[in-house]
Every structure is written in C-alpha cells, then in structure tokens.
C-alpha cells in the first residue's frame, strides 16, 4: 500500500486517479467494471486516511458517487429505473464514463502540447544583424510643410492677441480684410503666385503679418490653396476655381492646371 501514497500525491484529481486504475487493469474505459473500480478507488481513499494524509474534497465527492453507483448495481433492475431524479434515463455510470473519456482526451491533448513545447525550445529564429546598407538610412522626416509651421505661428499670434491688445500688433493701415481683397485681386490677374513674392513689397512687419493672416483666412475659406510641389521647393499660392462656368473662356485658356 505504500506505493499508493507516493502515487496518490501525483494525481491531478479523482479523474486522474480513476484513469490510472483503469490503465492498471489494462481494460478499455468502456469495458471497465465500475463496481470493481469503485472498490479500488475507495480503497485508495481509505489508505490515505490511514496514512493521515489530507484528502482533497474532489476525491471525497467522487468516492460518494462511486459508492452510489456500486450500491445501485446491487439493486434489481426494475428498482434501478425508479431512482429519483433519473427519470430522463440519465445513468450515473454512463455519466462517469463519459467524463472519463473526455478527460482522457484532454490529457492526451496536453501530452501533445507538451511535445510541442519541448520541440519549440529547440527552434531558434534567425536573428540577422542590423542591415548595413551603403546608403545612410533616411533620417526621420516630419510630415510637415512650412505651412504647418506657419499655422502654428498663427495659433500663437491669436492667443497672444487675446491676452494683449491686438492693436499693438496690427497698428498699420492694412487690415486683414483689405489684404484679402488685395490678394484676390492679384490672383485674378495671375493663376499662381509665389509665397515669397507676396511679402516682397511689404513695407512693415505688421503688413507681413496681415498678409500672412489673410492667406490663412483664404485657405480656411477654401478660396486659395497653398502647395509645395517639391519637398524643399517654394510654396505657391493658387486660386481655387469655384466652377468652370464662372470663368470666361479666355481665363480658362491661359489658366494653368489647378490643384483641385
């Protein structure tokens, strides 16, 4: 009986112990003699008790199920059917066998996972060294244009304007709306303007700012677009043509392709 003790501690639970007992008898789960199995199982429990070892609750529950099955076997057939709560023909023997079969399947699957686990320990991924291409890797380039930066400037100016007297900054003759008119006028004459030339004639700092704010406003109103055709190229200002119908044929003829 001493061998039981050693073995007992290794069992995962009552189902594991039952499978061990069945395997020991070298019989198929479906052909197992449940009465005999119950006797053996209860013997193990008794051994555990004698050895004063702690018995997990699950084992005791299983022991009572097995004792029930065993006692039921002793009853004549006609009385077995009458057992309360089993009117649907649920047979506790069958239920136990089903549970054992299912458990065994997963125990086998666990063994296969264990094989995979061991195999995986021996598989090493290729870890190439860092690529050393003869060109220098592209430096991280922010996806922003000068216009993003200018917009940021505008945001700051606006905030500053809120907390200070805006007149201090825009003290000159130009107002933003005047500058808008002026820009639209220029764009009527020419399809596109260089960003830098817009500021070339500015006579004062504030005129630059006003021009700049006018541009941003027109962009916001979708009257013009600012494009930077090349990464480091000059920014161009183009008028957004409202519709083809609004244009005279002459203008269409000499107008360059629009960005929209």
């Amino acid at each position, binding site marked *: 009986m001493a061998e039981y003790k050693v073995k007992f501690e290794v069992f995962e639970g009552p189902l594991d112990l039952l499978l061990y007992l069945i395997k020991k008898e070298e019989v198929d789960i479906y052909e197992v003699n449940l009465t005999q199995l119950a006797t053996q199982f209860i013997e193990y429990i008794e051994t555990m008790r004698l050895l004063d070892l702690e018995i997990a609750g*699950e084992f005791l529950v299983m022991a009572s199920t097995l004792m029930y099955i065993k006692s039921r076997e002793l009853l004549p057939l006609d009385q077995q059917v009458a057992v309360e709560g089993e009117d649907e023909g649920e047979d506790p023997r069958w239920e136990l066998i089903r549970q054992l079969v299912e458990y065994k399947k*997963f125990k086998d*699957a666990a063994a296969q996972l264990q094989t995979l*686990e*061991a195999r995986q320990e021996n*598989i090493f991924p290729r870890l190439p060294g860092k690529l050393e291409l003869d060109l220098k890797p592209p430096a991280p380039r922010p996806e922003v244009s000068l216009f993003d930066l200018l917009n940021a400037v505008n945001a700051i100016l606006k905030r500053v304007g809120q907390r200070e007297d805006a007149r201090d900054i825009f003290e000159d003759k130009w107002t933003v709306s005047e500058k808008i008119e002026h820009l639209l006028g220029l764009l009527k004459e020419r399809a596109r303007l260089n960003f830098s030339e817009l500021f070339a004639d500015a006579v004062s700092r504030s005129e630059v700012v006003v021009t700049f704010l006018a541009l941003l406003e027109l962009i916001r109103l979708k009257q013009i677009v600012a494009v930077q055709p090349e990464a480091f190229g000059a920014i161009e200002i183009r008028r957004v043509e409202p519709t083809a119908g609004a244009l005279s044929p002459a203008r269409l003829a000499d107008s360059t392709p629009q960005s929209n």
Partner: protein
Amino acid sequence: MELKSILESLLFSAQKPMSAKELRDLLAAAAEQTPGDLTTGAFKKVKEGEIVAALEQLSREHAEANRSYRLVCVAGAWQFVTQPEYAPWLKALVGLKNRPSRLSQPALETLAIIAYRQPLTRVEMEQVRGVSVDGVMQTLTERGLVEHVGRAEVVGRPPTYGTTALFLEYFGLRSLEELPAADELRRIEVKKPVSLLTADPGLATAPPEQLQLKEEGKMQNEETEPGKAATALNN
C-alpha cells in the same frame, strides 16, 4: 524579379516575424520611395492573398531544399527558424538564456481544455478536469497564454477565457486550426450545470452518439461532414 524572392529577402533580413500585411505595406513603401522605378512599382499593389500564396510556395521550397532552416508561419507571422536538431550548437551560440520554465501537468491540461473549447468559463474547465483550476489559471494568465475574452450569457455572467497569440507562439502553431485532433476535441460535450446552461449551446454540446467508442479512448466519429467541423471551428 519574383514576388516570392523579394519576400524571402525581406524575411531573411527582418529582425522580427512579419505578417502578410506588414510585407504588403513594405512593398508599397518601397514603391513609394522609388518613384518612377518600374521594378518596385510592379509590386506596389500586391494583395495580401497573393503574398500568402507566395509565402506558402516559398515555405514548401525551403522544406524541399532540406537545409538546416525553414520558413514557418507562427501566429500569423512568417519567419525563418532553424531545425530542432541543431539546437545543441545554437544553444552554444545563443548562450543558455533563461527560458521560461516548462508548464506543469495541470497547467497543460487546463490549457488544452481552453485551447479546444474557447471561449469557456472556469466552471466549464472544472467540469472537465474534476478539480479546481484557480491556481493554474493564475499561472496561465500571468504567463500571458490565456486571457479573459468575454462573459458567458448565463446567470451571473461569469468571465470566459481563451488563448492568446503568445499561446500560438509558445507552441509554434500557425493558428488554432493547427491544434492536433482539433475537430474531435472541440466536439465532445462539456456538461454544464443547469444554472449555467447557455441560451445557445453551440459548440460545447455534441450529439450523444459521438461518445460511443470502440477502442481505448478513441471516438467513433460518424461520417463527419466537412462543413460541420468548419462551422464549429469558427464558433
């Protein structure tokens, strides 16, 4: 220039496993970085499906070449790996790094149940194992192999669990479909206590005839219609 060769060169040089989608994005990026180049341009808009097909072809070629390495797909990402028999030398190369300890028997059993039956609740796991899974579940969750995936539509709305991508990686599986004997194990009934009966029993309940088996622990699977298993898989 063949698609599969380009993919091979990329996987050969990549520092990590790459999915078909990532490879597709690289093909597009290469085309964008070389405007006007016809060679890269030709692969600008390759579809993921074509990439997967090329990778599978490549993987077969490498298996046939019978070299010391293979191209494999684990958890949806492709990578080159060495064959297990070279492990002794690779261990000398890499050094005996501290790999995670192997999983215990209870952990493996519980993991198997979750893998095949997911999503499922703790009570359902305990039904199969016949013992509590509390300690084991903590281990499995801490190791990132299983995770809480939802809640069962039954009284108390208990949490349900499933396996993670790391689970696939840990066992070197491409997907859950690759689990051994998957169809069979998924279909065995998990008995549920009455109070936990799901509104839609779905996969977890199998027709009783499957339980009739002939030999040792083998199930007598009646002509399983292919469609049925496939449906079950997607559950």
